[in-house]
């Protein structure tokens, strides 16, 4: 297993093509826009080396029997599913930010079970490819970006109906060596600081969309791959220190638009090619694994928001007011509720025919749908308690200015025994963690709220519930 520093060093030998702000970035590892996300991802490595976190960050591989980083593991039981959630919360408590590696983790788990079932139906060899690939990841401890979301174009049309056929990734050529893919993947979390990309379809497909039924793995710096780094709210704050809030680990994961210009993939890294009837299965499994996470990862992020809110209440001298205490109770209640949901969908997991364990899909979707609402409320309460100063703080340059600084220090004082800079730093942390990009990611990460509502209705077993009600109302025969 790699250490955090070994992970960071490994990125330097890659030839990843990254653009941001109109420029090609040669040293993306140290670039201020990207370095916080590198640091966050490095914690998924670093914590695996520390005794008080290894129980969650490491596990024995079912393929080799070796101890591996859990992010390269295929879930073997419900304990694995629950430990995944606990791991995510543990890491979030250390970073206060997204550390990006779970998308690839969920991708390999979804593909592991789906390829098994494709092979059973079509006598293909994808599951063997997948097992070799997972072994490779376990041995190298490489970080994989799970690339699902296509740009999609006109959402009212199928992939094969789009005026521009490249708006969904598709196979444009095939030969005895491999396939060639073309298109792009949007919102790619952690792409620029990963080692590999796992391409997957983003929607259920029909026979007309066969060319879009493709899943494969490519190196992050494969010829033809270009990453265009996305802007975030306040991203120029990354060139500051205190004003960035979470200077070490940033906000959210650092997302990119990843362009795939006729990228070659050898057959041994292809996990689906034309088996369109399994695209929906793959998408659904990936989505549920990913929705499972949010009570863990956002639970940990909310722990930090709650801690910062409590701290600022103390610094403001209002911590003992009953309405403040009650609002903090509400924040804890909402956080533990989403955590409950993640634990529940994990504990109710079940084996797939491949032997890999899968979460309860209904509860996983309930989990994520709750997160899309509750995190906004947690952030709203933090703003309520922190006060309007959250939105009007002077710059850190003013705080440190030889002439103006004393005014900022004097008039930023809360309770007398707390230095003004401490109050300033906590406010900046809260401001950056609870605004803009962070909220949008919680809303749309792992699928938009309507996607969860569709799944909840599908899984909700309405016919059975109606039957129960009719029975109690005396409408049905009791022997029905």
């Amino acid at each position, binding site marked *: 297993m790699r250490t955090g520093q070994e992970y960071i060093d490994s990125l330097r030998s890659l030839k990843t093509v990254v653009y941001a702000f109109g420029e090609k970035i040669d040293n993306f590892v140290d670039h201020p826009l990207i370095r916080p996300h590198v640091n966050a991802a490095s914690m998924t490595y670093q914590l695996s080396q520390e005794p*008080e*976190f290894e129980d969650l960050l490491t596990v024995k591989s079912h393929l080799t029997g070796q101890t591996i980083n859990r992010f390269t593991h295929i879930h073997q039981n419900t304990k694995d599913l629950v*430990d995944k959630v606990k791991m995510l919360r543990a890491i979030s408590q250390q970073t206060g930010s997204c550390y990006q590696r779970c998308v690839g983790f969920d991708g390999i788990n979804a593909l592991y079970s789906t390829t098994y079932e494709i092979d059973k139906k079509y006598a293909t060899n994808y599951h063997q490819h997948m097992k070799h690939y997972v072994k490779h990841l376990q041995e190298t401890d490489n970080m994989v970006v799970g690339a699902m979301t296509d740009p999609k174009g006109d959402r009212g049309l199928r992939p094969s109906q789009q005026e521009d056929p490249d708006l969904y990734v598709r196979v444009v050529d095939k030969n005895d060596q491999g396939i060639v893919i073309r298109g792009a993947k949007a919102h790619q979390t952690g792409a620029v600081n990963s080692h590999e990309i796992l391409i997957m379809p983003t929607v259920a497909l029909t026979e007309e969309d066969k060319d879009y039924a493709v899943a494969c793995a490519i190196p992050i710096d494969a010829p033809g791959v270009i990453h265009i780094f996305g802007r975030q709210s306040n991203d120029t704050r990354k060139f500051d220190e205190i004003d960035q809030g979470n200077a070490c680990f940033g906000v959210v994961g650092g997302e990119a638009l990843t362009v795939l210009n006729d990228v070659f993939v050898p057959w041994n890294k292809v996990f689906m090619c034309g088996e369109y009837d399994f695209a929906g299965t793959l998408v659904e499994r990936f989505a549920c694994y990913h929705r499972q996470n949010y009570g863990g990862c956002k639970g940990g992020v909310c722990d930090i928001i709650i801690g910062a809110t409590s701290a600022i209440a103390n610094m403001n001298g209002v911590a003992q007011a009953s309405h403040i205490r009650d609002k903090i109770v509400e924040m804890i209640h909402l956080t533990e509720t989403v955590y409950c949901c993640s634990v529940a969908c994990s504990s109710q997991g079940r084996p797939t025919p491949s032997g890999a364990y899968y979460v309860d899909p209904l509860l996983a979707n309930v989990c994520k749908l709750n997160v899309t609402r509750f995190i906004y409320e947690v952030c709203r309460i933090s703003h309520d308690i922190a006060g309007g100063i959250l939105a009007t703080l002077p710059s850190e340059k003013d705080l440190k200015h030889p002439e103006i600084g004393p005014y900022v220090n004097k008039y930023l004082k809360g309770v007398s025994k707390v230095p003004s800079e401490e109050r300033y730093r906590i406010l900046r942390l809260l401001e950056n963690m609870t605004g803009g990009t962070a909220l949008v990611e919680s809303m749309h990460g792992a699928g938009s709220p309507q996607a969860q509502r569709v799944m909840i209705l599908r899984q909700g077993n309405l016919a059975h519930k109606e039957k129960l009600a009719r029975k109690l109302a005396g409408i049905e025969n009791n022997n029905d």
Partner: protein
Amino acid sequence: MVFQIRIGVKFCGNCNPLIACKKLFQEIKKEILKADLYIEFSSWESPNIDLLLVISGCPVDCATRPDQKITEIVVAGETIDGYYCNKVTLPKEVSRKLLEYQNCLIVRGNKLF
């Protein structure tokens, strides 16, 4: 005669700890020095440990155990072996339990002083 005991130490994964596990372990080591106990700490996976000290951050105590059955002292949040213990007195109480264990120890020839 004095016997040295070899203790494996296992932490839980600290997903949301109620106590500071690593700090607690440092304080237990200080108490052991004060109490003059002959203790060697080693990895929880070592084959020749006499006892396993489990330090879990909360009462769920989900720390993985080794395959072989072994005597344990379990700190899980503010409990020792299931009984409440204030976090301030935890290090002393763990040290006291280790002394109790040392007093009714299994003799291991190569650890005899």
